[in-house]
C-alpha cells in the first residue's frame, strides 16, 4: 500500500515546514534585534546639550578678539575682551537678522549689513538695530569655554 509511503512523505513535509518556520522565526527575531541592538549602542555623535555648548578652547582667542560659533540652530558670538574676560551673545542682529562680527579696531560688535554697532554688553549703541543682542553666560571649564543660555 502507498499509505505508509505517503505518511512518511507527509511527516517529512511536516518536518520541513517546521524547520522552515523555525528558521523564519529566528530570522525574523534577528531582523528585530539587529536594529534594536544598534539603537541601544551609544552613538558616536555627542548627545545634544541643548542649552549649552563648548564654543572654544581656552587658548583659542586672544584678548580683543571674537569668534562666531554655532548655538543650537542659530549663530552665537564669543568675545574675549581686552581685559581677558569672556562674553557671549546671540550673533543674530536685531535689525534684519544678519550675522554680526567682532571689530577689534572698534572694540565693538558690528553688523556689516547696515553698520549697526553693539557695545560689549550687547547693547545697541549705533545704527539701525532696535534692540540689544541676547546675552548668554560664559563658564570656563578646564580648558573649554562653555556658553550657556540664560534662564
Amino acid at each position, binding site marked *: 500500500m502507498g499509505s505508509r509511503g505517503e505518511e512518511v512523505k507527509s511527516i517529512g513535509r511536516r518536518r520541513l515546514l517546521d524547520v522552515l*518556520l523555525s528558521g523564519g522565526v529566528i530570522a525574523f527575531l534577528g531582523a528585530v534585534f539587529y536594529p534594536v541592538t544598534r539603537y541601544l549602542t551609544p552613538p558616536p555623535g555627542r548627545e545634544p546639550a541643548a542649552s549649552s555648548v563648548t564654543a572654544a578652547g581656552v587658548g583659542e582667542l586672544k584678548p580683543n578678539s571674537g569668534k562666531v560659533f554655532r548655538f543650537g540652530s542659530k*549663530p552665537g558670538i564669543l568675545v574675549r575682551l581686552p581685559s581677558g574676560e569672556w562674553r557671549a551673545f546671540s550673533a543674530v542682529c536685531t535689525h534684519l537678522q544678519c550675522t554680526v562680527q567682532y571689530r577689534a579696531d572698534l572694540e565693538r560688535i558690528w553688523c*556689516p549689513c547696515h*553698520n549697526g554697532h553693539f557695545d560689549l554688553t550687547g547693547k545697541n549703541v549705533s545704527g*539701525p538695530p532696535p534692540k540689544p543682542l541676547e546675552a548668554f553666560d560664559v563658564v570656563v571649564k578646564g580648558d573649554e569655554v562653555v556658553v550657556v543660555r540664560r534662564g
Partner: protein
Amino acid sequence: MVRQRQTTAIAYTALFLACAYARPACAAAPTDNTCVLCHSALPEPLNVPVEAMKHDIHAEKGLTCVDCHGGDATAMDETAMSPEKGFRRPARAEIPAFCGRCHADGAYMRHFNPRLPTDQLAQYWTSIHGQRLQQGDQKVATCVNCHGAHGILPPDRAESRVFPANVPATCGGCHSRADYMAAYGIPTDQEERYKHSVHGELLFVQRDFSAPACNDCHGNHGAFPPGVTSIAEVCGMCHVNNAALFVKSPHHQAFRERGLPECATCHSNHDIHRTSDEMLGGADGTVCRRCHESGSVGYNAAVTMRAAIDQLKAGLERTDATLARARRMGMEVTEEEYAVREQVRPQLIKARTQTHLSDPGQVVEVVTAGVNAAAASEASAQATLAEAQARRRNLLIPLALIALLIILLRLKLRQLERNG
C-alpha cells in the same frame, strides 16, 4: 495776503464786539489767559491755535502764548496785543530768529532739555531753505512749515509732523506740489518715488524707523541735497562696505570727472529698489551697459563678475533643491540647512558687495569660497538623500521576511487544520 488783511479786519471787529457785549463773562475771570478766552470764541482760522495748543510740547512745558508772542494775557481789550506790551507776530522771514530766540540759546534750553541740540538755527542758515529765505524767497520752508506753529510735537511722538514715518509727507507738502515748486525747476516726484523704494517699504510697511527718510540723507535743519561728490558718504553711513569699496574702485574717479552722482548713478536716489543680479553683467538692460561698450575692459569685468555670481547662485540652488528633496523624503536636514545659511549664503552677499570694487578677481575669490562651501553642503545633502533611498531599499528585507513568514504560517495552518 489780501485775504489775510480782510480776516484780520473782521477779526478785530468781531473781537471788539465780542468783548463789548460779552464783557460781563470776560470780566468774570480776569486772571485767566485772555488770549485763549477770546480766541476760542472767534471764527476760523483764529480759534485754530487754541485747539492745537492742547497737544503741544511748549504748552506741556508750561509755556503760554505770551512766552512766544509777548503781549498781555490779562488784558481784555486790544492792549493784549499791543506792541508796547511786547506783542509780536513774526513775518515769514523773521520766523527762524523768532524760534531761535529760545532754541538757539543753550543756557535757556538746558532748563528744559539738556540733551536737545541748539544748533538748529545755525544749521538752517546753511540750508537751501535758509539761504533762499535770506535772499527774499518767501515760499521756502521755515520752522513752522515743518514743525507747525501751534501743536508742535517732538519727533518721537507718532502724531508729530516730524515723526520718521511722517517726514516724507511733511517735506512732500511743498516738494510734491508741481504748482508750488514750478519756479524752482526741480522734480516734484521724490515723495512718490520714495514710497515705492525699498527704504519707503521698510519705513511705511515694515515700520522700521531706522530706515532713512528725507532728513537722514538731506539733513534736518541744514537740508541741502548731497552734492555729487558726497553721495557715497551719505549712503555709506549705513552701507559701509559698498561705499568703501566704491571709493577704492575706478568708478569713483571716473564718475567724479563726469559729474555723475556716485551711488545714485546705478541705484537711483529716491526710488531705490531692491538690487538684483540683473543689474550686473554685459546684457542689455544692465547698468554696466549704460556706459561700457561690448568688448571693452569694463564690459569684460562685468561679464566675469556676473558669471561668477551666477555660478554661486546655481550651486546654492542645487544644494537647496537637494535638501528640499531630502526633507520631502522625511529626512531631518537641519544641520545641513544651517551650514548653507551660515556658510554659503553669506558668500553670495559678500560677492555682490564685492562688485562695487569692480575688480573681477576679488569677486571670483569670494565666489570660489562660496562654491566650495556649497559643494560641501551638496555632498552632505546627497548623502542624506542616499540614506533616504537606502532605507527604502532595505525595507525589502523585513518585508520579504514578513511575506515568507506569512506564507509559512498559512501552510502550517492548513496542515494543522487538515489534521483536525
